[in-house]
């Protein structure tokens, strides 16, 4: 089973708060965490080891269509702080799912404010109607340790948003892992060959040359 992941922790520049937040997430059961850095108007996600995935926040319809089909992103983050001024259309969403782009729903506004709760749930239900629960990730945009919830709690929230039980648990584990791997494959050619900065050949010819030569000689 894929490990649980929370792919959205928002922290300012305070390192101690960040450490407390990550420790709290680990204590609750998350094995993988991604920290959001707000960069200009785009958001860049950074795994603790290395920068891998890129996610983008969108609010207007043209950006939606473009990002689903053309832009080189891994996750599309749905703003829940206001009523989305457009409806999701099925064609670009289907293209996005085929490309492997995931959709991210954030739940910490729902904890803070009751108006946000309504917007979160209504936007989530809207999205579910179109994409049928595929490639959905639920994460917290937590700034404080008390805003994170445990992975099974979040999977239960997925049930509220209209996901099936299977999809809800996948939204916290499998789909997160898929998004991270999707980010990694963007660095490689067709997901197979990766160049490594070491005095070794690339993974493409992973069979060690002596073995190949040996089999050729034996023919």
């Amino acid at each position: 089973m894929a490990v649980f992941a929370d792919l959205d922790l928002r922290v300012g520049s305070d390192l101690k708060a960040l450490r407390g937040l990550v420790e709290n997430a680990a204590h609750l059961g998350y094995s993988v965490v991604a920290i959001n850095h707000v960069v200009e108007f785009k958001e860049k996600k950074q795994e603790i080891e290395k920068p891998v995935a890129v996610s983008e926040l969108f609010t207007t319809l043209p950006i939606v269509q473009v990002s689903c089909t053309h832009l080189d992103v891994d996750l599309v983050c749905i703003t829940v702080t206001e009523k989305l001024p457009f409806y999701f259309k099925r064609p670009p969403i289907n293209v996005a799912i085929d490309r492997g782009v995931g959709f991210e729903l954030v739940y910490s506004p729902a904890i803070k404010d009751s108006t946000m709760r309504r917007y979160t749930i209504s936007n989530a239900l809207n999205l579910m109607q179109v994409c049928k629960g595929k490639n959905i990730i639920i994460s917290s945009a937590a700034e404080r340790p008390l805003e994170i919830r445990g992975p099974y709690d979040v999977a239960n929230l997925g049930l509220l948003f209209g996901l099936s039980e299977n999809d809800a648990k996948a939204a916290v584990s499998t789909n997160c892992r898929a998004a991270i791997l999707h980010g990694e494959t963007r660095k490689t050619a067709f997901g197979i060959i990766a160049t490594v900065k070491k005095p070794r050949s690339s993974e493409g010819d992973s069979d060690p040359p002596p073995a190949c030569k040996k089999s050729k000689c034996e023919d």
Partner: protein
Amino acid sequence: MPAPATTYERVVYRNPSEHHYMKVCLEFQDGAIALNAAQFKQLLVSALKDLFGEVDAALPLDILTYEEKTLSAILRICSSGLVKLWSSLTLLGSYKGKKCAFRVIQVSPFLLALSGNSRELVLE
């Protein structure tokens, strides 16, 4: 000679447990606030009411044990109301203006399972 046709009997066990049991703990941000059992129940009912309304606030919910020092409790809810109670506990953000969070430690349809955490069992 062909073997006689085997007969199959299908036995379906529906979940015999009507209630689900949850072990929860309430965590406050700046130190613990004292809550007695009645206030705790009031908090749970108001959380259900905020998210789901009057009808679901009246779900048959019982607090089986409550420890005031650690603010932890074992709750019992009918199985149909588990998802609603669990999600309203998850989305509860504050109590009387102070930030808090519910940590759900264990959920099980059997009360005996709450006495130990089967995931931490060590088989010698």
